[in-house]
């Protein structure tokens, strides 16, 4: 019974991974939301006893390997973001979807700034405001992800 829930959560994370690696037309590329982080955030709010910092760390490492960033950067940033959501899940759950979206936007901003700092420290990249587009698109797509995953969770009775 236990493994079925974890497997279904794993399936959703797997789809998010594919979505975040899939090629997009060049013009849409800077606007790609961080699907994986959004899905991880949802599960850490909905079932914090199943998905936690450990999962976030492993998935972050997979992202690092698949997208060719320095190893450990996404593991670190994912773990910190999931720590924030998992430690406040009872508060965040009680907000309305739009309030949640704004909060998620803040977390995403934090995530991207951490990403930039680490990459700046490791590879000397310079700041480009374009790097922050995923914050806006991620914030706007949160309600849809939330509703979709809630339907998924209720349909398969993942607890």
């Amino acid at each position, binding site marked *: 019974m236990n493994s079925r829930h974890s497997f279904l959560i794993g399936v959703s994370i797997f789809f998010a991974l*594919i979505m975040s690696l899939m*090629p997009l037309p060049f013009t849409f590329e800077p606007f790609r939301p961080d699907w994986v982080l959004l899905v991880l955030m949802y599960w850490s709010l909905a079932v914090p006893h199943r998905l936690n910092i450990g999962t976030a*760390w492993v998935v972050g490492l997979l992202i690092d*390997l698949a997208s*060719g960033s320095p190893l450990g950067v996404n*593991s670190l940033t994912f773990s910190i973001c999931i720590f924030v959501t998992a430690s406040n899940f009872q508060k965040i759950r009680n907000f309305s979807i739009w309030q949640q979206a704004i909060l998620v936007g803040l977390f995403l901003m934090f995530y991207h700034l951490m990403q930039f700092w680490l990459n700046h420290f490791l590879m000397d990249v310079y700041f480009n405001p374009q790097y922050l587009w995923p914050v806006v698109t991620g914030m706007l797509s949160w309600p849809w992800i939330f509703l979709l995953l809630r339907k998924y969770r209720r349909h398969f009775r993942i607890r």
Partner: protein
Amino acid sequence: MKLMFGRTVSLQLRLFVAVLLSIVLIVGDKYTQGSTTVRTSLNTLVSPLIYLANLPYEVFSFGAKSLQTREQLLSENEALKQKQLLQSEQLQQYQFLTKENQKLRALLGSSAKQANRKIIAQILSVHSNPYSHQVVINRGAIDGLSEGQAVIDEMGVVGQLTKVGSTTSRVLLMTDTTHATPVRILRNEVRTVVEGMGKINQVKLSHVPHSLDVRIGDVLVTSGLGGTFPEGYPVAIVTEINRDEGSPFAQVYAEPVAQLDRIRLLVVLWRQQQEIISSE
């Protein structure tokens, strides 16, 4: 079902462990290099993901190819045949010239240049880290690739291999901020270094003295120094020179010869055989 408030390990401790492990990874990744088995197997781990993410693109491009009309295919065939004819004419000359070059080198007593081993690779279109310029190719350690090999396309130098898995590997493009290519100016053999700036259509020449003889339109080719890139492949063409006497160096910008934003097929080169260098 587990109790909502009963946790085994506190979140703070988990976070502490995760942060510690990440820092170990970051430091380990930055300060070690070479294609060790650990790295290759880690890169191999995500290869299926990359192939799967590339699948939609393959399906679309296959669909677009099958929908081409007969006339389009015929005209394309005609154009390719003409191109091939022109190139084979140049090739006849080339064979004569290489023979002559070998004879002249023998007369001078220097070692003959040997043709490199090479392999054709295709780009898998997947999303990469937005902070760096890199592409994934469909060849890996199985085909004998290793870190640091030079990659070119039909026009010129593209970059070098960085992360090699067993069936996929990553090419760091020459426009990445961490990449530098040793070059010389084709016109007057002056050596310099081309650095990436993180822009796909612009690179810069580093530490160019004001007195250096460089002009707009100069072709930069690989100098063969540094050992990564074989000598003589075109790299970039100088587009902008800013000789401001107030700054310590002249600012020289160039445009890469290879079409880095629309590459599809690449050639991976092996390094020249070690014994040739030692016999010199």
